[in-house]
């Protein structure tokens, strides 16, 4: 334990969804441990049905864990006072059908905001998500992407210390995704903590300091984004002044030869380049895409269970 309290912490949380009717239960989370430090952008990855939303809903106090416990901003899950300092955007958020500016004021007021500040902040957040021109329109007539923007705006109303976003970019166009990314980065500048769940690896890769990968309710990988992407097994060596046929699997382009070799062979390959009169241009660990990481950790996946989620 470090001195600073964690922004969000799960301790051996398990959750089973039971059903009286079907008499079968789905284990959505299984002994799930996670600690999100204050001030970081944390990516929460996992394929559909991995249990990401379940974990988030437990943290927000919508549900109780079957086993285990946890804290949010130093208070046990479900504490209303802690929620006041949290902004939450649900997956497929649904809002009431009314003018967006009034809607923002409504959600702000639920967090006991009031006075002139309320209307001012409503305008501010709508500007932040690019809805300032739609402020007087009814949210019931919005497209999915616009609803999602409005949902993000309502989560920002209270200028939260901890922002929990469940698949925030699922309905957004590329431009809006950039906007969300910038919002997240500027929130970190301001010292906020962001917990971002996604099944889109590219989203997470660009902004997150650390990521955790959840698979079937279990944490399968966790670490700094760069470490996770770095392969410990392979390096890419780029050389000049040799021909590619001297090495199996090497690719030649514009006079540069690139070869990917196991780390254990790195030394001997470099020596051979020099022996052949070549010159080493660069030696780099191979960066894997998160897609690869994803495929690796989910490789053990058997076909989805018949009752499994979509």
């Amino acid at each position, binding site marked *: 334990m470090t001195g600073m309290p964690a922004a969000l912490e799960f301790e051996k949380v398990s959750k089973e*969804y039971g059903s009286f009717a079907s008499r079968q239960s789905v284990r959505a989370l299984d002994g799930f441990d996670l600690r999100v430090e204050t001030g970081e952008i944390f990516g929460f990855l996992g394929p559909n049905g991995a249990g990401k939303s379940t974990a988030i*809903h437990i943290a*927000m*106090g*919508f*549900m*109780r864990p079957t086993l285990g416990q946890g804290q949010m901003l130093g208070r046990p899950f479900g504490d*209303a*006072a802690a*929620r*006041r300092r*949290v902004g*939450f955007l*649900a*997956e*497929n*958020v*649904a*809002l*009431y059908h*009314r003018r967006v500016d009034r809607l923002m004021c*409504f*959600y702000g*007021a*639920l*967090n*006991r905001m009031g006075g002139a500040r309320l209307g001012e902040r409503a305008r501010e957040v709508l500007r932040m998500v690019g809805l300032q021109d739609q402020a007087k329109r009814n949210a019931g007539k919005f497209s999915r992407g616009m609803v999602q923007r409005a*949902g993000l705006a*309502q*989560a920002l109303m209270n200028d939260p210390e901890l922002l929990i976003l469940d698949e925030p970019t699922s309905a957004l166009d590329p431009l809006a995704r950039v906007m969300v990314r910038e919002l997240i980065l500027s929130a970190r500048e301001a010292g906020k903590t962001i917990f971002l769940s996604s099944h889109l690896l590219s989203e997470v890769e660009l902004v997150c300091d650390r990521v955790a990968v959840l698979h079937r309710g279990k944490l399968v990988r966790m670490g700094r984004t760069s470490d996770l992407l770095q392969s410990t097994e392979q390096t890419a060596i780029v050389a000049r002044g040799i021909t590619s046929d001297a090495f199996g699997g090497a690719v030649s382009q514009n006079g540069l030869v690139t070869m990917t070799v196991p780390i254990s062979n790195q030394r001997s390959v470099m020596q051979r380049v020099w022996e052949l009169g070549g010159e080493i241009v660069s030696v780099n660990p191979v960066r894997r895409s998160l897609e690869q990481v994803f495929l690796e950790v989910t490789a053990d996946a058997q076909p989805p269970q018949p009752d499994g*989620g*979509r």
Partner: protein
Amino acid sequence: MLLIAFNFVREQRWPIFVLLLWVLLLAFLGLVADIPRMREDLLFLFKQVAVYVVAFSIFFGGSAIYNERKSRRILAVLSKAVRREQYLSGLVLGVTTACAIYCFALGLTGSWTLGAAGFPVSQVWFLMVCLVAACMLAGTVALMFSTFLNPFLAAGATALMLGVPWIASQTVAAGWGYVIPVSALTNTVLKSTFKVPGHNEWFPVGLAVLETLAFWAVAARIFSRVDIAVAVE
């Protein structure tokens, strides 16, 4: 809490509007009818409309949480600094307000049509107070059941809970009507005639308020333990 209540009323504005149409019908009849001659019919219609509102309070109370959950809108609300019991009190207040709006309109038309027919106006308003109290209690009982049952079962359970004392009050002893005073209160409305407009008995009203608090407390206890598991996408 007030916000949630107001929000509820806003969301239910169409059902409330439809209900108000009934009141309008009564007003319309009052306009065209020969009031003194048709006064028994008017009173009958008045009572009928009054009973509808109790049924609607059960419907409102039983479906409120379910609708919010089904539409996933509950998440954005409960993600704020709103405790579960505050959320519930907002709904109780919302159901009561919705019914009170209706009762107010009914009271207005009633005091005009029935008043013209010789029914004491102050008694009309007393009956409306009884009705609001009955709605509040019925709505809260329905809300309590709906925290763990689906709207149909919740409405059924509420009907059972309110119906059994009513039947007992008819068959066994009138005192049973006071166990859950919805039946006593509705009876006050139903039994009133032009000859005997009924006496001002405040006891069941006070009892209804107390029981509302009790059922609200039970509902809050249950609701703070249930999972708000929304539909899976």
